[in-house]
């Protein structure tokens, strides 16, 4: 609300004051307005949340693998309200599930992919000295941080109808979400996270529209920036409805309203004392109106990262760059009108389901176009298999599996047996985990030298890659089998009660668990590599990957204001192996020969 003031206040030029004055520690590393520092803050916080979210899941997988056995190591610390004698309670399982989803999506991937990579890389790639509104940028990080703190502390709350965090899934469907414990903190946390994303999105959009370097027309924009651009619009326009819905649900909890509570509710044998008259499905519409675009927020930056790395390591231009750009715009647009494919089982009639099935099938086409373009980019290339490239290449088939299994979910009839089973879990984890997370790993290995001036270790990187790649497939592939067999998701006992799960589907829980824990171990080389390389990695110059885009013309790490001279762009983003050129890469910032002489 007071953005107006901030938009204004950020606007002055600091040029003269900054040239000489050294910033203190706090202004330089903590309350920095430099997009690179903020980007790194976002990325580190996001990574920590990813690790935390993964840890929650490893605990859950224990319960699924060894139903009712005490949790080793940490079990005894969890307390009687969560795990008496170390044995997990169903309430706690539900909390872990809801928080795993929330943390991974809103506090892990989005902050890392958009807040981290977007902030750090995008202004460099467009040749801007910083974001358009540096103070808003700082504010959006700190609002996100606050939201994170609220979410984390919610595990310890005791005043909101019970102990612990939200336990109604990341989707928070009312009436359950209104009548169960811990949800208030979740809603408050979400309102912070949404506000932060809105501020960030606004900043990104203005930056891309206004601060592109001279000569950098839209069709010369690196694909990563296009991805961030479309993502910005998704965040800007899809998040407010969830913010509104969050306010309504908060009112239902705190002010006794019944927006989402119909009349005649009976909870635990007693009529619920509310006015009633609300609509439970309304929440689902508002939630998915955000959450479907949100899943594209998770994938588009990943596609952008993969495109950059593939172009760089194939040493040739992206095949069909233009088609990719049109596809990503179309994808962004369509993502606003498919949301109800998550709601086929809520009693949808033929007309509405026809509409949403059709849009869902249509939206798969631009994904196919983008993936096909990336795949064809490999043809005729001269591929280098370094760690970022391995992760980026793995993205392609993994996203393929995730995307293709979206098709049976998108057709209402085949969604009947699959809805809310582990098939859905497997579908979207293939897109977000070996998909997005792998792309993010690729991006970290790729841009690490830009951020630190040092390379990460290749051997540790390859161990990380192969370990993760093998384990993650053992985690998620069996879930398709479980889902087809009818095993439902969000089951505290992994569906052990049901006879249709008996045999193989149930047994698989054990192997999935083992693979998940092993994958946890394979993250250790990465964590070690990450921190050790900051200090002891091999020192590199500006352009270690011999890349063409603008960020590589700045020093590594870039100083305040990014570029030493004003960057000017002369050509498209991926001019690799140009016939007749002296090198196999012709950077965007390299003047034409005729101009060089001047």
């Amino acid at each position: 609300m007071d953005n107006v003031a901030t938009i204004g206040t950020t606007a002055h030029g600091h040029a003269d004051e900054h040239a000489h004055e050294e910033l203190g520690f706090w202004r330089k590393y903590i309350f920095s307005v430099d997009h690179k520092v903020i980007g790194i803050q976002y990325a580190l916080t996001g990574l920590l949340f990813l690790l935390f979210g993964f840890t929650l899941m490893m605990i859950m997988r224990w319960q699924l693998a060894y139903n009712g056995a005490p949790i080793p190591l940490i079990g005894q610390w969890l307390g009687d309200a969560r795990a008496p004698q170390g044995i997990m309670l169903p309430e706690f399982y539900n909390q872990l599930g809801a928080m795993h989803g929330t943390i991974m999506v809103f506090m892990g991937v989005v902050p890392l992919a958009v807040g981290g990579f977007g902030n750090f890389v995008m202004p460099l790639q467009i040749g801007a000295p910083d974001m358009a509104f540096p103070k808003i940028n700082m504010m959006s990080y700190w609002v996100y941080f606050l939201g994170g703190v609220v979410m984390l502390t919610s595990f310890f709350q005791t005043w909101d109808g019970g102990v612990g965090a939200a336990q109604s899934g990341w989707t928070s469907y009312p009436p359950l979400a209104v009548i169960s414990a811990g949800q208030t903190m979740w809603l408050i946390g979400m309102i912070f996270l949404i506000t932060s994303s809105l501020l960030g999105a606004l900043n990104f959009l203005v930056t891309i529209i206004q601060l592109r370097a001279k000569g950098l027309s839209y069709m010369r924009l690196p694909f990563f920036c296009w991805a961030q651009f479309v993502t910005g619009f998704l965040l800007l326009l899809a998040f407010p409805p969830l913010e509104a819905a969050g306010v309504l649900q908060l009112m239902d909890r705190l002010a006794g309203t019944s927006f989402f509570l119909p009349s005649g509710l009976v909870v635990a044998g007693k009529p619920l004392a509310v006015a009633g008259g609300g609509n439970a499905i309304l929440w689902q519409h508002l939630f998915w109106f955000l959450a479907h675009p949100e899943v594209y927020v998770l994938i588009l930056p990943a596609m952008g990262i993969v495109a950059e790395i593939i172009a760089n390591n194939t040493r040739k231009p992206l095949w069909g760059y233009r088609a990719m750009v049109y596809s990503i715009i179309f994808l962004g647009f369509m993502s606003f009108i498919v949301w109800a494919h998550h709601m086929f089982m809520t009693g949808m009639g033929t007309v509405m389901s026809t509409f949403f099935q059709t849009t869902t099938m249509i939206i798969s086409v631009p994904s196919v176009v983008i993936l096909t373009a990336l795949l064809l980019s490999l043809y005729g290339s001269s591929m280098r298999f370094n760690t970022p490239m391995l992760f980026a290449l793995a993205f392609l088939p993994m996203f393929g599996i995730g995307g293709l299994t979206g098709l049976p979910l998108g057709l209402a009839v085949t969604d009947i047996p699959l809805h809310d089973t582990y098939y859905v879990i497997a579908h979207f984890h293939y897109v977000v985990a070996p998909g997005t997370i792998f792309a993010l790993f690729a991006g970290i290995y790729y841009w690490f030298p830009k951020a630190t001036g040092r390379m990460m270790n290749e051997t540790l990187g390859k161990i990380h890659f192969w370990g993760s790649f093998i384990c993650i497939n053992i985690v998620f592939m069996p879930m398709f089998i479980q889902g087809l067999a009818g095993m439902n998701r969000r089951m505290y006992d992994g569906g052990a009660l049901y006879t249709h799960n008996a045999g193989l589907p149930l047994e698989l829980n054990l192997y999935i668990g083992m693979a998940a824990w092993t994958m946890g171990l394979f993250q250790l080389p990465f964590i070690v590599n990450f921190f050790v390389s900051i200090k002891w990695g091999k020192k590199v110059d500006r352009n270690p990957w011999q890349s063409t885009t603008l960020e590589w013309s700045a020093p590594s790490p870039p100083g305040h204001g990014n570029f030493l001279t004003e960057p000017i762009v002369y050509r498209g983003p991926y001019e690799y192996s140009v016939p007749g050129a002296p090198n196999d890469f012709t950077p965007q910032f390299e003047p034409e020969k005729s101009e060089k002489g001047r």
Partner: protein
Amino acid sequence: MLNNLWLPTQASTHAASVDYMIILVHWLMLVLFVGWGGFFVYALFRFRKGANPKASYVGAKGKFAKGTELAVVVAEMVLLFGYAIPGWSARVGAFPSETEAVVVHVVAQQFQWNVHYPGPDGKFGRSSITLISAENNLGLDRSDPDAKDDIVTINQLTLPVDRPVLVRLSSVDAIHSFGLPEMRVKQDAVPGLEMPVWFIPNRIGDYEIACSQLCGLGHFRMRGFLNIKSAADYQSFLDEGAKELLQQ
């Protein structure tokens, strides 16, 4: 493997067609994946740096990409208009008439399924939330003449084979989902709404009702039983229920 895909037993008339469609989609997925994957693996070997030291600026040529994309679109449209839309409209449009079908009310509640049969008179008695108690989860008003013969069971849905079944589904607290894996039936039970669900069981046997929507800490154990009986066995089930009511 692609013949049954680990799907549960088919025990309703439409189950086979749902499965057929699932298998069809999976064939499409497999063909696409193998096609793309084959190209991918080929490219990885053929165009590694060692095998192809100099990259080509132009790269792939030809209409190959357009062709596959078009094929994907066509296949999806066939699935959509040929199977999915008609299939769905049969599920949510072509409800059997109340007279020919077996009609039951199923009221979901944390964490059980209350089943309400109209009894011999074929009429459902009135119920009111003010009458709800531990013994009367539905709040059934037994003073209503229509309610006198109504049979109520918990977590136990018994139905005759080979007859259309119309379930009227509702919930009194959270959203639950009435999942019958072997029937290929799933429908959310949304408080404030009454949802019709229909199917024709065609296989005698004991099956399950699986709650398929997170509804609280007991979600995982909200399991019901579905018994499909022969017409005669179903009748004796109803008679037994009526007898029990008389004894009370």
